[in-house]
């Protein structure tokens, strides 16, 4: 009997399992292969603009990602340095193997039990989760976190080839996908892609523009162990007219354009064939050459994800400056997978209609390690709360990117893979990567999920904030810089809070509200906002619909 079972040991699953364990739950972590924990299946980097903010927030709750990234970092860059501190984005290139080792060690410290088995079904009793059927027998538990990423009924495409599987050489979780559909959670399919992997020894580095690592010593985690590895070189090159000709000549062989892929891909991370097709007038697209590790010859050419046939991939890659003689170790591919409509989840990422079932990560329609990990934290903290009757931990838009993401997902749903961007955060000026401890320290202390070392760090931080000399720190200076704007935003937030106090009864029948059009009824029904403020943020809901809703909600409250 476990308190919490987590299915899937990717970034969401590992964070969920460790967060639940930190709150005192006994946790089992189910995975096909134990060595998959902490696997970076796509780009070997952690952080960035918006994403770096998520990692810092996760860190305040003692999440694993920031610390592991520091231990595995082989290249560091603070993005957006030329702009205001609100949008500085810490990003590291991580050594793939070192990262996996670091996650494995951190996970072991938390006492999470790794169970090597496939989850084949959920056991539901009286509308609540009671356990998980696995290939190794029945496991009982009080709550379950499903963090299966792209593995639900996933299909991989390399040109005309179609393979069932969620990642290179791995199986798809077919049985579980079937049951999720039976519960009525399945929504549709999304796609994502990766570029081919190159042999770094065959790249002509000398001809390419080098991208240096930052000289100053910043770390992802507030608990910096001071580990600084040998820095590797990254470089930039770009596609050219010849590359585009080769790609355009083979549009017919791309599963994207031939109609084999039905899932919608992310607009902000288009495949190279998409870029050539949609922006044909551009003379070139940048490619970032990112080494995957210290003793790894693989290089990840960031910017050219593709599902073209392997021979076309080799040809177009070799048309690029510095890559004329490159050896392609593995072709890129597209993955199409099933996801769940996250509007079926509440603010704790628990399925509204099934007590004890939590969903986190790519299954909710997001993309990216950081987005997955942050959801893992939310689901893990609250799965433990459900199992042990602890208090819920909720995040809001005013104080964290995590809150922005959870609110966006559960209220708006997704129509394309969801990636964090600072443009999504209306309180961006207050949500900085450098003040995560200030923003979330109190909440983290209250959640009771912290190590002694973290607790001391947070308390010391608050002490320094109120002490002399704070104005001279980086965070203090940024506070002062944005103070007038933050005040204005606070007034906005106060208005939001007023609307947030107008509760919309869960059983409210939208169709019966006079003045609501069919379209509004559909939108509101799908999102099921809990407050008037949430309703106001449901995409496409008009002010007229809001006033009708307000009238209906207050009438019911008065009755």
């Amino acid at each position: 009997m476990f308190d919490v079972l987590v299915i899937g040991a990717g970034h969401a699953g590992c964070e969920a399992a460790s967060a639940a364990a930190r709150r005192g739950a006994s946790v089992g972590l189910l995975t096909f292969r134990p060595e998959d924990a902490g696997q970076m299946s796509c780009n070997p980097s952690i952080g960035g603009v918006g994403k770096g903010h998520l990692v810092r927030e996760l860190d305040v709750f003692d999440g694993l990602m920031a610390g592991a990234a520091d231990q595995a970092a082989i290249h560091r860059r603070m993005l957006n340095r030329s702009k205001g501190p609100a949008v500085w984005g810490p990003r590291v290139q991580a050594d793939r193997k070192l990262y996996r080792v670091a996650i494995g060690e951190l996970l072991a410290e938390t006492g999470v039990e790794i169970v090597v088995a496939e989850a084949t079904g959920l056991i539901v009793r009286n509308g609540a989760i009671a356990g998980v059927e696995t290939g190794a027998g029945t496991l009982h538990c009080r709550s379950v976190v499903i963090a299966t990423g792209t593995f639900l009924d996933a299909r991989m495409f390399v040109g005309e080839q179609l393979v069932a599987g969620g990642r290179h050489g791995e199986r798809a979780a077919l049985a579980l996908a079937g049951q999720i559909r039976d519960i009525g959670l399945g929504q549709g399919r999304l796609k994502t892609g990766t570029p081919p992997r190159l042999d770094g020894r065959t790249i002509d580095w000398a001809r390419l523009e080098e991208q240096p690592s930052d000289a100053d010593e910043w770390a992802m985690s507030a608990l910096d162990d001071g580990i600084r590895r040998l820095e590797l070189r990254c470089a930039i090159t770009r596609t050219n007219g010849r590359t585009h000709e080769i790609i355009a000549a083979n549009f017919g062989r791309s599963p994207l354009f031939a109609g084999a892929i039905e899932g919608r891909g992310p607009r902000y991370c288009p495949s190279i064939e998409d870029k050539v097709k949609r922006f044909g007038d551009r003379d070139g697209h940048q490619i970032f050459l990112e080494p995957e590790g210290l003793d790894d010859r693989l290089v990840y050419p960031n910017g050219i994800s593709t599902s073209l046939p392997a021979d076309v991939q080799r040809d177009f890659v070799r048309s690029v400056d510095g890559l004329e003689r490159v050896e392609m170790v593995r072709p890129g591919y597209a993955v199409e997978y099933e996801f769940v409509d996250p509007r079926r989840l509440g603010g704790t990422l628990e399925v509204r209609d099934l007590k004890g079932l939590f969903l986190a990560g790519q299954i909710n329609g997001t993309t990216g390690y950081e987005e997955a990990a942050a959801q893992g934290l939310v689901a893990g903290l609250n799965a433990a709360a459900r199992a042990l009757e602890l208090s819920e931990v909720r995040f809001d838009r005013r104080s964290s990117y995590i809150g922005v993401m959870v609110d966006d997902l559960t209220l708006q749903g997704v129509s394309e893979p969801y990636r964090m961007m600072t443009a999504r955060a209306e309180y961006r000026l207050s949500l900085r990567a450098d003040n995560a401890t200030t923003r979330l320290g109190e909440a983290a202390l209250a959640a009771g999920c912290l190590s002694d070392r973290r607790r001391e760090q947070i308390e010391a931080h608050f002490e320094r904030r109120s002490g002399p000399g704070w104005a001279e720190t980086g965070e203090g200076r940024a506070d002062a810089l944005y103070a007038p704007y933050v005040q204005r935003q606070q007034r906005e937030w106060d208005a939001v809070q007023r609307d947030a106090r107008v509760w919309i009864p869960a059983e409210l029948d939208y169709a019966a509200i006079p003045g609501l059009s069919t379209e509004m009824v559909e939108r509101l029904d799908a999102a099921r906002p809990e407050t008037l403020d949430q309703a106001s943020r449901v995409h496409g809901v008009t002010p007229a619909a809001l006033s009708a809703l307000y009238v209906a909600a207050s009438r019911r409250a008065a009755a």
Partner: protein
Amino acid sequence: MRELRSPATAELLDEALVLRFDSPASSTGEDVVEFQCHGGRAVVDAVLSAIGAIDGVRLAEPGEFTRRAFENGRIDLTEAEGLADLIEAETESQRKAALSLAEGGLRKQIDRWQEQVLGFSARAERAIDYADEGGPEGDPQLSSECGALASELRAWLDRPRIEPLKDGVRVVVAGPPNAGKSSLINTIAGQERAIVTDVPGTTRDHIEVPLSVAGIPLIVTDTAGLRETEDQVEAIGVSRAEALVGAADVLLWLGAPDQAPQHPRLIRIHPKADLGEPIPERALGVSVVTGEGLGALLLQVADLAKSVLPAEDAIALNRRQAQHIGEAAEAVRAAASAADLVLVAEELRQARHAFDRLSGRAGVEDVLDALFSRFCLGK
């Protein structure tokens, strides 16, 4: 064509044209039936009372159909305002301005501005969220384009507003006690026989008379009461008079010409011209006794009033619209001068909100849509 009969007595009331509009394609979005009766007052009254006798039926509140159309999403806020003005419109030029608004003239203009600000936002957000995508640092064009939009918005705010058209152009009659202010107003009102309602808005302090001169709606205000009560409540009286003079669209001054307050649209009047005193230079001699100068005065008033009214086919803003556009103008101006791109984006967000409040639409998704349709992004 249908026979309309009383449900109670089956008596034939009228043979009327009956039009049926099913929801949601009707003007309000609900099921609507329209009776086009014969014109006589008696017929209409009979039909109305027959309908009113049916259980659950009542007369619409003022503006209720417009409100329902708005609530059902048939029209948006700016169109609703235009329709409301149309219903209230009392003169021909009011009607034309209201129609232009209702037909979505302002709506289209706001759409254009919103589109423009959305584009600016997308450019700022792109530079922030795609920091590592290379390309030139910053967007030097953005600042000057924001500046240009701010000027355009300011120019709109300087245009004649709809209030003078709706409420009437404020003509304030001022001057020393016993200069003949009240008799002048009474004479104008009597001569034009154009009093629309019974002295609305009358307060203890001043009297307002709505008039229509040459098709232009006027509100003529007498400051007489103010000056004469000066002794009792001097400070309050004087400051109110000053406020009235300040708010005047057209000022008629009945005192000594060199004591006239500063005002861009001032007519100096020499009253009681029939008494034979010499008429000062720059002043218009008027006599309520002989009628001398009255015609010329009305012509001058109409000319000046016209200059504060929107042109007949122009879109005029009301106070609410002007306020939001003012907020947007201020934010776009701040965006033009902000050095930090994050603050540029923040000001543009404020501008978007101002337009959203104006038109009733919102959403970060709109920005992202603009962003992704215009730029090739993503690694």
